[in-house]
């Protein structure tokens, strides 16, 4: 299966601080890769680097983002703009603030089409079509409304419609369910999963919620301190995590067995700050499996069949009630 999107050795800095420190993965058409991590792990910066939407002061300092084999990072801005939206669509965390409050939502979907050469007439009919596809009732009426007249879930559907309208190959979802009610979350997940299958989208789904990962992902990339610490298919990852950080994350999900048994196990300590990383493995200070080598040497991502993990200690040698 050839991958639509391949990222290699991506490094992104804000000012002098590297937030993303060499991240790589590949996503095929119709497949979903979940990028998981705590806040500050660099997962959102990875998404914004691929989409070319880094905030002021942020820049990609290394690596490649290959879209069907072409490195989009090497493109001049004018060609890059033609990729943005048209080939790589993006949906965002906060639907309440991600739409222009003064413009009708239909126009906000349509402008993403006319910007890529669609005629106004075709853009209009396509807008009504995608508003229906994301499950909004009476699209013609919705298109005339302003964002404040829609609920959060409806706004997120509008944003999804805007992202898929130009039929992109890649959809980057930056925690699009985080700001929504649980019932609405499930609807949004269903909409994206359906569109992924219909359009053959390669989806990169950024999240900190392992429940979401279990429901939508095929492959999972676990990020910590700007690097991938584990990469695996979703089933083996949940069944047998190969990195102590992933194991810690999984243990902190409530299960029927842990409910009413006091506090959930959690990963102690605080996430590593990108501006002051320790010399060795950045997770070492919080790691229950830490050995001497972890303190001064950062482990690379290596093959741990069936997945990959960046840890000096393989799971067979983990101490205590590992996993």
């Amino acid at each position, binding site marked *: 299966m050839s991958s639509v999107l391949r990222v290699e050795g991506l490094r992104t800095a804000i000012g002098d601080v590297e937030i993303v420190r060499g991240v790589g993965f590949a996503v095929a058409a119709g497949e979903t890769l979940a990028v998981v991590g705590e806040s500050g792990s660099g997962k959102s910066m990875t998404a914004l680097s691929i989409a070319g939407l880094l905030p002021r002061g942020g820049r990609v300092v290394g690596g490649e983002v290959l879209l069907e084999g072409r490195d989009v990072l090497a493109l001049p801005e004018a060609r890059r703009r033609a990729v943005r939206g048209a080939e790589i669509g993006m949906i965002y965390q906060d639907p309440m603030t991600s739409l222009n409050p003064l413009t009708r939502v239909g126009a906000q979907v349509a402008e993403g089409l006319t*910007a*890529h050469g669609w005629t106004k007439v075709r853009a209009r009919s396509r807008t009504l079509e995608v508003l229906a596809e994301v499950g909004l009732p009476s699209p013609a009426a919705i298109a005339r409304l302003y964002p*404040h007249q829609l609920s959060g879930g409806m706004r997120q559907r509008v944003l999804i419609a805007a992202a898929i309208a130009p039929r992109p190959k890649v959809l980057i979802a930056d925690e699009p369910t985080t700001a929504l009610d649980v019932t609405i979350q499930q609807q949004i997940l269903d909409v994206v999963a359906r569109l992924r299958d219909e359009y053959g989208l390669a989806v990169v789904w950024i999240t900190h919620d392992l429940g979401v990962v279990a429901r939508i992902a095929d492959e999972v990339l676990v990020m910590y301190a700007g690097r991938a610490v584990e990469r695996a298919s979703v089933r083996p990852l949940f069944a047998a995590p190969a990195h102590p950080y992933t194991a810690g994350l999984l243990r902190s999900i409530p299960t029927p067995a842990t409910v009413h048994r006091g506090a959930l196990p959690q990963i102690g300590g605080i996430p590593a700050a990108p501006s002051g990383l320790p010399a060795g493995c950045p997770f070492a200070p919080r790691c229950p499996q830490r050995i001497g080598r972890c303190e001064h040497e950062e482990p690379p991502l290596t093959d741990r069949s069936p997945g990959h993990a960046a840890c000096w200690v393989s799971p067979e040698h983990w101490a205590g009630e590992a996993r």
Partner: protein
Amino acid sequence: MIGWRWAAARLGGTVLTLFGVTAVVFIVLRLIPGDAITAALGIESGALTPAQRAALEYQYGTDRPWIVQFADWLGQLLRGDLGLSLTSGKSVGGLIAAALPVTVELAVLAAAMGTVTGVALGVLAGSGPGRARDSVTQGVTLVGLAVPEFVLGTTVVVLLAEAFGYFPDTGTFVPLTESLAGNLSQLMYPALVLAVGFAANVVRATRSEFVEIAEADFVRTARGKGLPAARVRLAHILRNAWVPIVTLTGIQFGYLLGGTVIVEHVFALPGMGRLLYTAISDRDYPVVQGAVLVIAALFVLINLATDLVYRALDPRTRAS
């Protein structure tokens, strides 16, 4: 759209405001030392016999208690009569009708020039915060804010006369209806002087709004759709910046109507500013009261217009 309740509240507020302004001006005027008699006769007024003074006060109507004078003036006002000037005997309504168009034209010209240049420079500065074009614009703006109108005004007059041998014909004012070129040649430069401060304020507001809105999530969405940079700036950033800019422009325009005194004086224009200035030094009570009332009414009207524009620009302020 606009509810009756809102309209009634606005109208009630307007009447209250105008009454308040009128009352305050009426009292303050009479608290200033001197009256129309001393103003007209100067030190010779000291030579008046008590009988002569009483006769003059009777003639001017200033012998009656304040409250009676005020009630009298309000009564006239309700009949649409602003009274007669104490110094010239002309109708106050007529004096204002002659002076108001000059000031309004001056203010409109200044506001138009100030808004256009202000927004253009504000966008220029705000779209590249920290860059050279931002620093230069901000420096120029600071100078524009700091230089007082009388300095700028007299400098312009001197420069025009000395360097170009050009002196605006100020002998008689040429109304717009008579000659466009003649009228503009008289109003162009004073309007320019007023536009400098106006533009400086608009630049500052536009720049800070622009910089702030550029960081908004919906602007990132717009960029993510692959819109050209110019469209992101105009259709998304500036579109959202307009709301506060319009508010500021409206308020500033209101201030201009009462704030042209110095410029009208420097350029010898027969507008409201000069009418008011002369009337105050002559203690010409009816003229001051009438002029202030008209300026206050216009101010309120402009605020109302600003509110309506604001509502038209921002769908969130409309009831759905």
